[in-house]
């Protein structure tokens, strides 16, 4: 009985089931191919996960507020290209990055403003945004990749190596996750985000400006998409016009695997962080065990469904035990 109580309390932690699945998956790949946990492979995992995870954090906050962002993959590709264009016009790399990040906020502002003022679903607004920003990226480059060479000080700040497994992008990922956790769980704005996504009319009559909350979340989503895109371009020394293709679905999958609701009003950035690691573990693990890489989508699809069913089942069980 006592053990059952402890287990139930652990399961009440929203992220428990996803953590267990992730650990089991790691063990699974390790048992098939011990190289999976070799230092060099762990290092690869830890340096690739952040650039895809950071945009997923923004998407999570936006989903909690009850909206979607399908444009993050395109913004992820567009922003680094925009930086190269600015630099080609003689702007320093530092200033170009600041300008580009500012622009990414404007992109989010546009998506958010159109969504809340016209009342059309964000699914449509950002589907439009997805095509538009990818289109702009292709027009700028004519489909060709561009070199992404910026000041070494920024390279160090964004992707520098700290110790054997720790690099700057990982620190950014965890720092952003922690800041967003603090905002969502311990700040007034977080309370408004959950209320806006949970029951917009209730939030509104309690004096919360739900339009403003949503617009700010759209801006955060685009900003973090741009931020992730910059990290990837620095890591690859290249800005690719098709960079970040399908990222929007990966990010939504990571959020949903981590317990974020598609209806809004529920979710955590910690869940998404773990969900993102699980996605990357599966992707990388399949390569390590030499399964054809095409299997990745198939497995992620299955994990999404299993994770949601599991979360649903546990939530029901907890409700009954209160």
């Amino acid at each position, binding site marked *: 009985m006592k053990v059952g109580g402890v287990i139930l309390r652990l399961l009440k932690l929203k992220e428990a089931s996803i953590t267990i699945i992730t650990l089991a998956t790691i063990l699974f790949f390790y048992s098939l191919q011990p190289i999976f946990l070799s230092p060099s492979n762990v290092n690869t995992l830890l340096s690739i996960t952040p650039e895809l995870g950071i945009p997923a954090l923004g998407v999570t906050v936006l989903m909690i507020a009850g909206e979607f962002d399908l444009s993050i993959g395109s913004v992820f590709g567009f922003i680094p290209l925009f930086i190269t264009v600015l630099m080609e016009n003689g702007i320093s790399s530092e200033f170009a990055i600041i300008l580009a990040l500012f622009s990414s906020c404007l992109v989010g502002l546009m998506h958010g403003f159109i969504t809340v003022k016209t009342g059309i679903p964000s699914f449509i607004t950002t589907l439009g945004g997805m095509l538009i920003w990818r289109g702009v990226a292709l027009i700028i480059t004519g489909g060709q990749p561009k070199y992404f060479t910026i000041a070494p000080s920024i390279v160090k700040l964004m992707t520098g190596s700290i110790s054997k497994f720790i690099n700057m992008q990982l620190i950014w990922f965890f720092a952003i996750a922690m800041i967003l956790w*603090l905002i969502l769980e*311990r*700040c*007034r704005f977080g*309370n*408004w985000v*959950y*209320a806006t996504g*949970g*029951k917009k*009319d*209730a*939030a*509104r*009559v*309690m*004096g*919360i*400006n739900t339009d403003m909350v949503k617009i700010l979340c759209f801006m955060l989503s685009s900003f973090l998409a741009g931020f992730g895109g910059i990290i990837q371009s620095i890591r690859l020394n290249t800005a690719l016009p098709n960079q970040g293709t399908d990222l929007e679905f990966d990010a939504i999958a990571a959020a949903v695997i981590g317990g974020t609701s598609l209806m809004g*009003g*529920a979710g955590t950035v910690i869940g998404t962080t773990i969900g993102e690691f699980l996605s990357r573990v599966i992707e990388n693990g399949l390569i390590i065990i030499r399964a054809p890489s095409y299997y990745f989508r198939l497995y992620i699809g299955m994990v999404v469904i299993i994770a949601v069913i599991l979360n649903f089942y546990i939530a029901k069980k907890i*409700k009954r035990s*209160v």
Partner: protein
Amino acid sequence: MSVKNTPLIKMVNIHKWFGRVYALQGVDFSVNNAEVVGLVGDNGAGKSTLMKILSGVYPPDVGEIFFEGKKVMFRSPKDAMELGIETLYQDIALVPLMSISRNFFLGREIVKSFGLKLLDLKRMDDESLKGLNALGLHIADPKVPVENLSGGQRQGVALARAMYFKRRLLILDEPTNNLSVKESVKVLEFVTRLKEQGISSIFVTHNIHHVYSIADKIVVLSHGKKVGEYKKEETSIDHIVEMITSS
């Protein structure tokens, strides 16, 4: 005019359209200090719309609102709340997935400053528990999500919140809808007690029996128009019922 004679709230010539529906057709409505007003009328008479205008949810298309004789414009519910007008909404403005205490302080969260303004969750828990207890609601854990509560308990939480924050006027839109007879009696007792504290209230209902015993004044709406306004002494339940049903 002396302060004493100035009504707390005066709504003048309020019109409201929803597309082609002419919901309010020039309604005048006033509330005095420490007065209990019963706002009655059949479903669809415009009672809730009038109250949503008074609590800042909708702006009126035509018309003016005066608070203690001063003209006011409510751009959002926040403006009304800041003047001390608190509303218990018919559809219970609680977010199901959020905890009782987070709902209790929604939009008015208590913060403590560490340079950064962080929620004072402990105080929010304690204060919301205090508010619930004051209403005789015994809920052990204010961290429980509202979705786990029964309909009556939810109504209780929303009422406790409105009671906690009210300062000048409490609007209760069909407050006894989800309540048992015993709980309804309790709500009526609270409204009477508010009056003793000098706080006015508007009790919206489609059933005159719910409000007759405690109301000082009864206003009858029908099809978006005010069809009657009576001091209680001047009227009877039968008369009001006839007004509601005949028009």
